[in-house]
């Protein structure tokens, strides 16, 4: 008992320390909350940026062209047999369809450029369409194909920086030799002229800086090296002077080049590319990209500027002009990308899809589930409920715990050595992938299951035993059902981990490029396949820009799968969880 005289003193001592104690608690709370906040923010950033990156991959611009499936091209034998249809020149059919749109293109090089509007792989798709419906032979068919990946990106506004100017007043086009001269009523080109001059001046500045650096370097050198450096500096200075004179419009004109923005004068079905701008800002020299000819008093015209210089982009001005013409003529349709889920992998980003990897993942996971869950649960039940406690079972336990920490690539090596080399199973197949992932998942699963079994209260076992249940009845009637939510959660987490695993599958050859999705069925198990994470890995190392978006889309698909898996785990847990 505290003396009554001590009580106020005690109270004082306690209350003096109290604010300090509350402050400490507050600090801890703030630290915890901010940690959670940071984690959530990073997660949102990650998912957000991936989603933003992935969005373009979900839509596609498609060319919808009428193709003449004339009998002599498509059906060389003329008997309509599959054999004959397979030998048809579908490439020619597609080329003809595009040429029909731009009959003025004749030059070989230009034609080759024209045919790069789409990937030749589309001819196979056309063949399949015809094979599926031989009645199309001799008909005109509206064929849908994705536009080339770079143009697709261009149409989505993700490839170049561009803008359209609407100048006031009219303009006239007059022929000047092989080229044309555009004359505007107003100073339509003045701003562009200034922009170009500015860019040229910047370029000149750059050159002069480089010349200065070269001269400085020369000061530290001697002999021939010094001579070379000085020579370089001199060269750069001359170049800079030339550029500067251009920028100053000394001869009344500034010449355009492929390192400057492209300027296109468009009206109706005519598109002219500016080759030089005049000092007065009213006129420009231009070359024809589409159509062409002298015109006067044109009031409905525009200037289309592509700020990204031609030398620094993957599509030429000509291709852009053709694409714009096709869009204008209504042959380009924008919509959801059907190829992302309907197609397997492809070299061409516009035709590449995740179907193959998705099927591969499903088949692989099927094997993993069928093998690892029963084996893992049975092992855990035996070890936890039946196995005697001795050195041998201790050894097994230690080994299982260690296996869970083994790097996954080691399991891949094991799979390669045992399943492929020793057992002779086919490489790159979901069967071997599933076997390897089962090996990798087993330790995790066994540990999770044992933990779930351990969590079942002793009182339930005692209750069952006391009623006269045998050991096995106790385990199967009471312990396992009670441990089920824990086992399910453990299994699903282990399987989700396996689903996201890449390294061991690289070792067994599932990294190969496989253009066909495996069959969703028993035979699919021994067909070459790849899985989602590897698909992501493959696409992320592809050079095509469009694959960046495909990669993000695939990551998103994998994320959705994972979330689905985890949601299933949570649902099952809730469903089976029981109070005791």
């Amino acid at each position, binding site marked *: 008992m505290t003396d009554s005289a001590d009580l106020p003193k005690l109270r004082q001592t306690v209350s003096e320390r109290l604010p300090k104690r509350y402050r400490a608690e507050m600090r801890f709370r703030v630290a915890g909350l901010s940690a959670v906040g940071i984690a959530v923010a990073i997660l949102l950033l990650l998912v957000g940026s991936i989603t933003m990156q992935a969005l373009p991959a979900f839509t596609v611009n498609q060319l919808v062209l009428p193709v003449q499936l004339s009998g002599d091209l498509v059906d060389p034998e003329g008997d309509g047999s599959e054999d004959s249809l397979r030998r048809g020149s579908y490439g020619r059919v597609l080329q003809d369809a595009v040429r029909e749109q731009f009959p003025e293109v004749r030059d070989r090089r230009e034609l080759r450029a024209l045919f790069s509007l789409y990937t030749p792989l589309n001819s196979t798709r056309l063949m399949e369409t015809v094979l599926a419906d031989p009645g199309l032979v001799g008909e005109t068919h509206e064929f849908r194909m994705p536009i080339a990946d770079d143009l697709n990106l261009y149409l989505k506004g993700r490839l170049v920086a561009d803008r359209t100017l609407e100048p006031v007043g009219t303009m006239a086009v007059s022929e000047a030799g092989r080229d044309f001269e555009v004359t505007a009523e107003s100073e339509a080109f003045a701003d562009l002229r200034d922009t170009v001059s500015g860019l040229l001046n910047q370029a000149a500045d750059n050159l002069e800086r480089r010349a200065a650096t070269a001269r400085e370097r020369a000061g530290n050198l001697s002999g021939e090296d010094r001579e070379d450096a000085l020579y370089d500096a001199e060269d750069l200075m001359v170049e800079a002077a030339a550029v500067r004179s251009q920028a100053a419009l000394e001869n009344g004109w500034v010449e355009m080049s492929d390192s400057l923005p492209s300027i296109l004068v468009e009206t109706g079905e005519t598109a002219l590319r500016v080759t030089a701008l005049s000092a007065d800002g009213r006129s420009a020299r231009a070359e024809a990209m589409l159509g062409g000819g002298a015109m006067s008093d044109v009031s409905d015209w525009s200037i289309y500027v592509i700020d990204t210089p031609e030398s620094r982009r993957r599509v030429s001005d000509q291709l852009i002009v053709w694409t714009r013409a096709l869009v204008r003529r209504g042959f380009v349709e924008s919509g959801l990308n059907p190829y992302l889920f309907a197609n397997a992998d492809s070299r061409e980003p516009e035709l590449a899809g995740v179907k193959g990897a998705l099927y591969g993942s499903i088949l692989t996971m099927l094997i993993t589930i069928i093998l690892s869950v029963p084996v893992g649960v049975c092992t855990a039940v035996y070890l936890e409920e039946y196995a005697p406690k001795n050195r041998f079972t201790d050894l097994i336990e230690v080994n299982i715990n260690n296996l869970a920490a083994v790097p996954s690539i080691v399991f891949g090596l094991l799979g390669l050595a045992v399943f492929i080399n020793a057992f002779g199973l086919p490489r790159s197949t979901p069967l071997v992938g599933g076997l390897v992932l089962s090996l990798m998942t087993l330790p995790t699963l066994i540990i999770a299951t044992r933990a779930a079994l351990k969590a079942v*209260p002793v009182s339930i076992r005692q209750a069952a035993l*006391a009623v006269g249940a045998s050991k096995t*009845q106790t385990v199967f009637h009471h312990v396992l059902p009670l441990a089920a939510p824990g086992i399910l959660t453990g299994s699903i987490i282990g399987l989700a981990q396996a689903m996201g695993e890449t390294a061991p599958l690289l070792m067994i050859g599932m990294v190969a490029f496989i253009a066909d999705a495996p069959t969703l069925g028993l035979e699919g198990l021994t067909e070459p396949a790849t899985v989602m994470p590897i698909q992501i890995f493959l696409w992320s190392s592809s050079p095509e820009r469009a694959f960046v978006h495909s990669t993000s889309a695939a990551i998103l698909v994998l994320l959705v799968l994972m979330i689905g898996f985890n949601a299933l785990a949570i649902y099952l847990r809730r469903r089976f969880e029981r109070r005791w």
Partner: protein
Amino acid sequence: MPDNQSHSDSIAGAGEAEQPVKVQARDVCVSYSGKQALNHVSIDVPDRSVTAFIGPSGCGKSTFLRCLNRMNDTIEGARVTGSLKIDGLEVNDKSVDPVVLRANVGMVFQKPNPFPKSIYDNVAYGPRIHGLALSKDELDAIVEDSLRKAGLWDEVADRLNHPGTSLSGGQQQRLVIARAIAVNPEVILMDEPCSALDPIATAKIEELIDELRENYCIIIVTHSMQQAARVSQQTAFFHMGNLVEYGTTEDIFTNPRDPRTQDYITGRFG
């Protein structure tokens, strides 16, 4: 311990019991991994009565209780010696299957431990695994009868499909007793059945024990001497693994012979 031998001979029976002997123990010793938990216990427990085991924690009373349905088998390192007979049949005999034994010797634990299943399934579990009911009707009858005997029928008759864990603590304990009764045992062991219950629930269980006495041999381990006094006809006092004193409950609580019993009962334990 010199007095073990003298006790094992002298305290064989409670003396006054009119009922035939149901459980007979002679020189029962139990050790866990070499540590002696029970020393030469000899006791005769009469049928159709309640026998209470009292004593301080770790005195061996629960250990002895667990010998009776061989729950000690489930503990690693447990060793039981001596003779232990129920109805003249040796419990520890190799030929006796613990599963059969446990069907015959029901047990109720300290904490109510109904299975996380419905009330019906809790009671029906034992009869099901032992195949005691041939039809659904028969099983229904067993369940109703057991719940009635456990005094729970009126409270749960309209919600047999509710989970057993939804009942109150006292009801759960009675459900557990009904579950034990359902396999029609002859001996019911109770290991501190009321220690987790409130006084009203305790009183109900005690009333139930008193009713069950007419048909079963009940052995109850309890820490509450008042409870032992209230429910039992015979009381055995255990101390440090020895059976110190065994006699009618009246004698033990009014005039214990052994000073250790005296001190324990009056709350003088050092």
